[in-house]
């Protein structure tokens, strides 16, 4: 039961982590008009780069440069605003403090000071947002994989609940969602008891919408079959994968044929197995087996699809899922690597998708997200994909953002420490 071991370590990491989160959040809520000097330094460097790019663009157009400059212009703009506001601050403060300022001017200055502080706060927020790089899959559509963990039938039923929740959510938002794969433990109303379901959400940008849903979702309720009325706990794992477009895009990272890209899958590495007819095959039998199983040999990633009567369609779907899983796994590995560096330098841990992220408690009719700390008491609305689910998801997105900013600061600091160490070494050599 690998999931259980996963859960146990998850809980441990989580306690230790939530202390950090709380501390971080408390500094955020007081929201001082100042911004971390580290971030400011980074913003200045990027703004300088933007200025340089603009200068070069003036003397000759280049799509690549223009694209880069475009992506930096938001940082430059926010920084400009922040600096303008920040520069006018001392003068205003002086005016307000100065006894000789006449009453009318002082009241004007006080108003001005208040609005400048507001601007400062809003620009620092902008700065933070623009500094955090967009997730590389953010603009893609996505696949949501739902799989029961420990807990037998209860987990399978809860997996069905989650599937319904996401489908309803999509319906309400006008997002097109189709079941790409459904393995059910029951032959009848199969969407209730799930062994594995993959929902394809076919709209660009939905990866970013659902990214916050990845992780272990836990249910606490009394199963219908439980005579003594005891509450059971079971878990379902949700994975959110990038749905890679059929055609490779122009931006390098989307490239199927580029061996260095996250999306590249060498067909030589993939073994295809189809159900073989027993015996001679060919004209001797008229089997209906259409299952296709792909195995990515280097990583031993296995995808099996048997939903359609068409082997051709099953194969296409299996490739779609395989590509998505590999791209996500590669991204995870990369993030893990960076996170390890961060831990070694500044001790900021990362929350992996193996962690328990949310609890749905039937008895108390509540849902708690363990990352943002939000608790909502309208379980039904959440399970119907209603606006309460928006609130939960939004809170997690906020949390993700603060984590990203935290990580950014950590990276900058690590970078600085490295530079300092290097220059010290250099000095020693002198």
């Amino acid at each position, binding site marked *: 039961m690998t999931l259980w071991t996963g859960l146990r370590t998850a809980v441990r990491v989580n306690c230790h982590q939530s202390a950090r989160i709380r501390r971080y959040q408390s500094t955020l809520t007081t929201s001082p008009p100042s911004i971390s000097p580290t971030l400011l330094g980074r913003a200045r460097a990027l703004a300088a780069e933007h200025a340089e790019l603009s200068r070069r663009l003036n003397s000759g157009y280049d799509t690549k440069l223009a694209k880069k400059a475009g992506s930096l212009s938001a940082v430059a703009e926010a920084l400009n605003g922040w600096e303008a506001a920040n520069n006018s601050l001392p003068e205003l403060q002086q005016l307000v403090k100065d006894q000789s300022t006449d009453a009318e001017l002082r009241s004007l200055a006080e108003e001005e000071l208040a609005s400048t502080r507001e601007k400062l706060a809003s620009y620092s927020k902008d700065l933070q947002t623009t500094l955090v790089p967009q997730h590389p899959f953010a603009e893609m559509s996505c696949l949501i994989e739902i799989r029961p963990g420990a807990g037998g039938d209860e987990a399978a039923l809860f997996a069905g609940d989650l599937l319904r929740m996401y489908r309803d959510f999509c319906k309400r938002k006008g997002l097109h969602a189709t079941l790409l794969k459904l393995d059910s433990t029951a032959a009848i109303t199969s969407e209730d008891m799930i062994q594995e379901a993959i929902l394809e959400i076919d709209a660009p940008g939905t990866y970013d919408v659902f990214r916050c849903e990845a992780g272990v979702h836990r249910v606490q309720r009394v199963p219908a079959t439980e005579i003594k009325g005891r509450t059971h706990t079971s878990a379902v794992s949700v994975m959110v994968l990038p749905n890679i477009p059929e055609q490779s895009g122009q931006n390098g990272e989307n490239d199927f044929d580029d061996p260095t890209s996250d999306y590249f899958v060498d067909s*030589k590495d993939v073994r295809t197995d189809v159900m073989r007819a027993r015996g001679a095959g*060919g*004209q001797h039998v008229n089997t*209906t087996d259409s299952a296709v199983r792909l195995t990515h040999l280097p990583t031993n990633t296995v995808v099996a699809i048997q939903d359609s009567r068409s082997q051709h369609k099953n194969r296409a779907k299996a490739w779609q899922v395989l590509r998505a899983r590999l791209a996500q796994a590669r991204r995870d590995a990369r993030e893990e690597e960076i996170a390890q560096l961060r831990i070694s330098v500044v001790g900021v841990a990362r929350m992996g998708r193996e962690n328990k992220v949310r609890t749905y408690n039937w008895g108390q009719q509540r849902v708690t997200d363990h990352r943002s700390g939000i608790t909502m008491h309208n379980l039904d609305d959440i399970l119907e994909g209603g606006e309460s689910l928006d609130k939960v998801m939004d809170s997690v997105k906020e949390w993700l953002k603060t984590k990203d900013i935290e990580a950014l600061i950590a990276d900058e600091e690590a970078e600085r420490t490295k530079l300092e160490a290097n220059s010290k070494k250099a000095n020693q050599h002198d």
Partner: protein
Amino acid sequence: MPRLPTSLLRRARHEHSLLPLLFRTCRDLPSARNELRWLREHILETASPKSPPSTRHQRLYELCLQRSKGKPLQYILGSQPFGNLEILCKPGVLIPRPETDLLTTHLAQTLLSYPPLPPTIHILDLCTGTGCIPLLLHSLLHPSIPHPHIHIHGIDISPLAMSLARKNLHHNTRHLHPSSQISFQQADIFDTEWLNGIKAESSKKWKWDILISNPPYISPHAFNNGSTARSVRNYEPKIALVPTTPTYSSTDAPETGGDMFYPRLLHIANELQVGVFVVEVADMAQAKRVVGMVRERGAWEGVEVWRDFPEQGGRDGTGEVVEVDGRDGRDVRVRGEGEGRAVVAWREGWGGVFEG
């Protein structure tokens, strides 16, 4: 047929009352589940929305009952996916097999991996049945050829097959190129007049480039000894499975009783001077016998055997060439994994396509 374990049957019944019926034919639970789901979907798609659930359930029960007696699912549902196509199926005409699907797909890929494929191609499919091979070949080839003129001619002795093939042509038009031609003709390929006719048709201006065929290849012996499934024997046309020709007599060796069509197919290929000859076979033993026939005739520059999965296995997992002893002591190249499934021969000028 071994009895199914009662415990499994009980489990199936627990899941759905109709599952044990399907289980009887499918022999394993996942397939039975899939078939039940496809049957239910079929009923939802075809039933009038006003029909009460009880009628629908009754209908589902009837279909499961038919299936439990061995009626092929493809005849019940009326179709079989073949590559990216949907081929209509009817009792009286052989259901297209996944092996034929893979063979046709691999042939198309092989042809396309040889860049200077001429824009005009003539393909002859003998014993075409539902017309599945011409339709799939066409749909796979035309998107990669600029201004394609792909002429495909399908022949079958069965009038039922010919009318179904024409329906299938119509059913799949959206996968086909408008400027190309696919035609079907009812004929006996052993008929000399027919051969003369088709020979006259190909003039000096053009030749048949490819002859492909999935002829009846099961020997009377293999038809009755248990290696042919009950559902096939009871529900599919015997004329599509077991060769019946004037030259066959029951005193012939039992194992070669399925070979009757290959000499005739080779003869036609020689008369028409086709560039590429592709025939499906039952197994490796038959494949080797057909290779022997090809070599006897000379005229062919190369010949090889494709297994069920020609692209798999081999030295680096790409279906690399494997050497096997031929019947006459000469080596035969065999590609891929699985059962021996096709013999491919080519004339001068086509070696570049197949030897790569």
